[in-house]
């Protein structure tokens, strides 16, 4: 090893931070080179001087009261931090959110029903949907009149029904006619 290479490795050699093989190589050179030995000593002295100065230096510190406040802040802040992270990781719907979500869904359904009701598919006065009667299906296009509300109490064979299906929306409208229903329009 020559001086140039030894000097390049000298800073690390001074702190024993080279591999064992490198340490041996540099050590072999130092045995025969007083100039490099002086340089090594210079590095070691500089490191020792700075280390001693650092040890003797007055570092800042807290008073006991300040220290307790620092620890309290760390603990309290840390707890808060964990809670926030937990909330992010596990989105749990609290009851008030569930109620709000339910109300919002109901509003949306009501709005959709209103739109459908006003799209020109208004049924005739005798119409009752299956939902309005006791047939249990779908939307109510209009409220049945007082007379039709008794549909459920009418004997089934006394009723005739006609079903209309919209090809665009799939909406089904069922017309129920009493057996004794008379369509006066044709007679006029």
């Amino acid at each position, binding site marked *: 090893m020559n001086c140039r290479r030894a000097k390049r490795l000298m800073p690390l050699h001074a702190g024993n931070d080279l591999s064992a093989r490198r340490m041996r190589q540099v050590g072999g050179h130092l045995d025969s080179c007083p100039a490099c030995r002086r340089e090594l000593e210079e590095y070691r*002295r500089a490191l020792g001087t700075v280390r001693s100065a650092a040890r003797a230096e007055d570092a800042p510190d807290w008073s006991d009261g300040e220290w307790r406040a620092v620890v309290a802040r760390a603990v309290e802040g840390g707890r808060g931090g964990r809670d926030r992270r937990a909330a992010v990781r596990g989105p749990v719907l609290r009851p008030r959110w569930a109620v709000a979500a339910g109300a919002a869904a109901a509003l949306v359904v009501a709005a959709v029903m209103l739109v459908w009701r006003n799209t020109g598919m208004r049924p005739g006065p005798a119409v009752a949907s299956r939902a309005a009667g006791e047939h249990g299906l779908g939307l109510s296009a209009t409220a049945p009149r007082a007379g039709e509300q008794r549909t459920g109490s009418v004997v089934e064979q006394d009723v005739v029904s006609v079903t209309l299906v919209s090809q665009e929306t799939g909406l089904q409208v069922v017309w129920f006619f009493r057996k004794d229903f008379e369509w006066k329009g044709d007679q006029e």
Partner: protein
Amino acid sequence: MVLAGRTEAFEPLVTLHRRPLLALAYRLTRDREEALEVAQEAFYRAFRSLGRFDASRSFRNWLFQIAANEARDRMRKSIRERAALEGAVRDVPRPADPEAGHDGREVRSDLMDCLSELSAREREVFVLRDIEELDIRETARALGCSSASVRVNLSKARRKVRDAIRARHPHLEAGR
């Protein structure tokens, strides 16, 4: 115990490391107020991150890692203001020393000011390895870099420190 949720055990645990952590923060920042803030934030982050602490590691070194990261973040944020301030201070001529020579405290302060010759990374490596005496591997782990990178920066840092002492304190360098 802290990991098990006993927060009252946190204080005795960190009290052991209070002064070393403050000293490290001060050596990295060279500013007393900044050091107090860095250390405070390090304790805060440490408590929050206790669940991620690898128990096979030294707790002190783990705290050092957090503090070094915090100090680096703060220095990055304030680097422009700091540069402007230091420039202004340099332009002001220092008053002559009323004493005939330096007392011990001034010499120590001057010696530690040699660290200002180093880049941020070099200073971190130098402080952790040569003053706090972490080994190369722990230093690399604390700084989130490779051992090779630590060696490169450490070599540069030691050379700069040696040169600074040679220039500022030739009597110390000569061993007198």
